[in-house]
């Protein structure tokens, strides 16, 4: 692809120590939250990052933001590895990579007015030129009324609060916004409003989003490409329609079949592929392919060999032994509908 890369991840790992003993000084185990994740985000694209709770998608988002320092690996923004910078050096980069949090109730300071919340990033970045004009403009851009600027967060509804969160992320004119489940606290009719807003802003300002979500239907609506995580690893990645029409990894297939479609006629014809059990603990992940204990298509080699993310079709990498050329080809997957 000839497009401009905004952010490049190279073999990012994030392990959290599990401590015990007197004053918890002994490290007894590690939570392997993110393991060997590499991908690029291109200018102006939305990359959907999907997975179940505990799969490491939020941790990965925080690693990009350097709110967590990755255990190893590189996070490259314009060729600069953010992991090697100290807080002071990071500041100019923080302007370019912003975040929208999940809970619009917890992520806004209740003692700040809307204007204070939106202008705080300007204060931190020491930008004082035309501050008021910028705030007024951004309030309008996210669809709030000018008189709301002096209100406090509790006076806003959930959807409006999320608009505030978006305004705060937008005011520094970032290249990339990490959206960490920005819709999950909202009702369906409000979700649609925010999805449309995010889409408009992307077109207007040419921003890239990393859209972290567990809702596969919304991800299809908003994303250009989709990456799917399971137990800290990216197991499949593809262009949006390709991903939903021709899922390759058995986990992707199961996940897609589990999502009910709001249409009784379609539902009557669909079969659910139920997975056995639940997601194992990331402290002690299974050997080989981490998905093998739950995989309906697992075979003898799966517990022994860690499948690498390799391109099976152009722009469609998968981490599954079924697609290695040395193994027999699996039968083609059916479409989800």
């Amino acid at each position: 692809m000839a497009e401009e890369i905004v952010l490049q991840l190279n073999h990012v790992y994030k392990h959290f120590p599990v401590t015990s003993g007197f004053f918890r000084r002994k490290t007894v185990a590690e939570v392997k939250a993110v393991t060997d994740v590499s991908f690029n985000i291109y200018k102006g694209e939305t990359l959907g990052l999907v997975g179940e709770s505990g799969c490491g998608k939020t941790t990965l988002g925080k690693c990009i933001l350097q709110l967590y320092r990755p255990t190893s690996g590189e996070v490259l923004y314009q060729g600069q590895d953010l992991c090697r910078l100290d807080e002071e050096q990071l500041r100019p980069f923080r302007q370019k990579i912003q975040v929208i949090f999940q809970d619009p109730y917890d992520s806004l300071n209740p003692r700040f007015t809307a204007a204070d919340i939106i202008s705080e990033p300007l204060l931190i970045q020491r930008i004082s030129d035309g501050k008021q004009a910028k705030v007024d403009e951004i309030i309008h851009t996210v669809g709030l009324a000018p008189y709301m600027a002096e209100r406090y967060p509790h006076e806003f509804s959930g959807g409006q609060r999320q608009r505030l969160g978006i305004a705060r992320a937008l005011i520094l004119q970032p290249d990339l916004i990490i959206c960490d489940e920005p819709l999950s606290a909202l009702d369906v009719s409000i979700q649609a409003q925010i999805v449309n807003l995010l889409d408009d802003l992307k077109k207007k300002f040419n921003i890239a989003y990393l859209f972290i979500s567990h809702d596969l239907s919304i991800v299809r609506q908003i994303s250009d490409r989709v990456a799917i995580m399971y137990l800290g690893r990216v197991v499949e990645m593809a262009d949006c329609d390709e991903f939903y029409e021709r899922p390759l990894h058995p986990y992707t297939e199961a996940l897609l079949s589990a999502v009910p479609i709001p249409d009784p006629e379609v539902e009557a014809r669909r079969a659910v592929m139920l997975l056995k059990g639940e997601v194992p603990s990331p402290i002690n992940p299974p050997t080989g392919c981490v998905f093998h204990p739950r995989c309906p298509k697992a075979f003898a080699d799966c517990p022994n060999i860690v499948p690498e993310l390799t391109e099976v079709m152009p722009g469609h990498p998968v981490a599954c032994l079924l697609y290695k050329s040395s193994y027999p080809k699996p039968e083609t997957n059916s479409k989800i509908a």
Partner: protein
Amino acid sequence: MGNLLEVRDLTTHFFTQDGVVKAVNGISYTVDEGETVALVGESGCGKTVGALSILRLIPEPPGKILSGEILFQGKDLLKLSRQEIQQVRGAQISMIFQEPLTSLNPVLTIGRQLSEALQAHKKIDSQTARDEAIKLLQMVGIPQAERRVKDYPHHFSGGMRQRVMIAMAISCRPKLIIADEPTTAVDVTVQAQLLEMIRGFTQELNTSLILITHNLGVVARYAQRIYVMYAGRIVEYGPTAEVFHQPYHPYTVGLLKSVPRLDQPKRERLQSIAGQPPDLIYAPEGCAFQPRCVYCDGGQCSIQEEKLIEISPGHFSSCVLAKGGVLIWQKR
């Protein structure tokens, strides 16, 4: 098929310091034997209160069931004494709550909580109850049930706790299960496991199910009939397939259009419903959806009291613009 449950003109209000919250305003619905019925709506529309009122689980004060009848197998549950309703709860009508961590007692073992319900309704000794509890845990797919009955709720994962809740709900073979957003706290793969299991049990035991949810996909997959609620009222109801295929209330239309679909490519724009649901303290006159409605012409909508009108057999809508099945607006 007779009605197992018939709710007639139920009104439940909450008397708070800020004013009277009109959570449920004269709703009526029925559940047939062995049928799965969905109560759908956004948060605050009164769907949970509408179902909790059945078992009189509304905290009183501030809540109060002001009027209505709840006929369960012909008996009015609102007229029963405290002891009598206690005999219905869990035994004939049971509940599955949304958040299993807060609805299970953290200081009692799972086995103890399961056998408590059994012993309350059946004349059995504690040993039999314990064996029964183990059997129930096996039924809901909890591995090593003999060992896990001694565990406490915090030893279980979210999905496992919800399995325990289901075990508790089916323990006395009730005639009706009320499931209040049973899968909002769990992931999609676990959601599929749990809902398939609940469906299995309702079919096996011929149990009726009231499924309270905001997930239209879940409704499409599991419910035979759907009741759509908005601002404390039922605005449309009918057989699921029909309501999804040809909705006759602008709110249902908006709701269906605002959810993106997994099986369809990206749409240019999602159709959203402008504005927000009304504050139930200051509900507007006439149709509550009117301020957000794109079809409203400002005429009769604001004056006329909402009334459910039969559009086609079994399919009702409260929209005055959909009178007699003649739509002033079109679906697509």
